């Protein structure tokens, strides 16, 4: 019979630390479905994707319905804040519908964003692309809005059907915005 003598761990604190760190498996990849085109929806999607890339997590954004506005060449520089149907907005919904209100609110939000040194949408998209994030447009929404891939920014990696999107998203965490 052989006896194995276990050497006492010289640095138990490292073992503890590793145990703690491996308790929750880290997120490897996120796939964000962006279905809205207002600034208060587009920024969170882009910032979440960027935060993921900063932490070494793969990030994909699937732009569908009005989310396509964020990658449509003619629209992305003029996205607005939703002033109607946004219960957290500090102005009553009835007033939010008045002419000019959306532009005013968007101007306020843009000013706040600049103050925080958050880049404009176009620069955010470039940062994300350079970070290795992937952008896909939804085929059905493209057809619905009569868009061609040439209407989109060149950084878009492709146009996918929902089935292809899910195949592509295998193993990743899904987030719908």
């Amino acid at each position, binding site marked *: 019979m052989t006896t194995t003598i276990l050497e006492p761990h010289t*640095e138990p*604190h*490292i073992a*503890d*630390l590793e145990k*703690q*760190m491996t308790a929750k498996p880290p997120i490897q990849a996120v796939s964000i479905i962006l279905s809205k085109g207002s600034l208060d929806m587009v920024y969170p999607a882009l*910032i979440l994707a*960027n*935060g993921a*890339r*900063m*932490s*070494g*997590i793969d990030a994909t954004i699937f732009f569908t319905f009005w989310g396509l506005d964020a990658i449509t060449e003619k629209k992305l520089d003029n996205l607005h804040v939703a002033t109607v149907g946004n219960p957290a907005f500090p102005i009553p919904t009835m007033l939010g519908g008045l002419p000019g209100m959306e532009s005013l609110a968007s101007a306020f939000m843009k000013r706040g964003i600049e103050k925080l*040194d*958050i*880049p404009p949408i176009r620069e*955010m998209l470039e*940062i994300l692309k*350079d*970070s*290795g994030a992937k952008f896909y447009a939804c085929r059905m929404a493209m057809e619905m809005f009569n868009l061609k891939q040439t209407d989109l920014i060149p950084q878009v990696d492709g146009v996918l059907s929902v089935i292809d999107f899910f195949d592509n998203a295998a193993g990743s965490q899904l987030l719908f915005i």
Partner: protein
Amino acid sequence: MPLRTYAGQSLSVNEEGFLSDSAQWTPAVAEEIAKESGLIPLKEKHWQVITFCREDAAREGQPPGVRRIAKLSGVGMKELYELFPKGPGKLAARIAGLPKPTGCI
């Protein structure tokens, strides 16, 4: 606070392995933290980023985010991600002996 041995010194780190006291950082410590993430050897461009992060943090009181690093360090965004494939946001700060960045961009 857990302790880890880097470059022959026992240093206090937080739960995520960031040095508790950035003043205890030395280039040799950086090499060893980098080794844990498979970044060996650290190349000149890595050092350019690490040095920028330490200088910027000393000036600003907080570690820079990736956008700031890419804008001001002389190493662009694409290259930054090539240099730190496991995520430049956290990794550059950890190797530079700084706390985890709080910014999201």
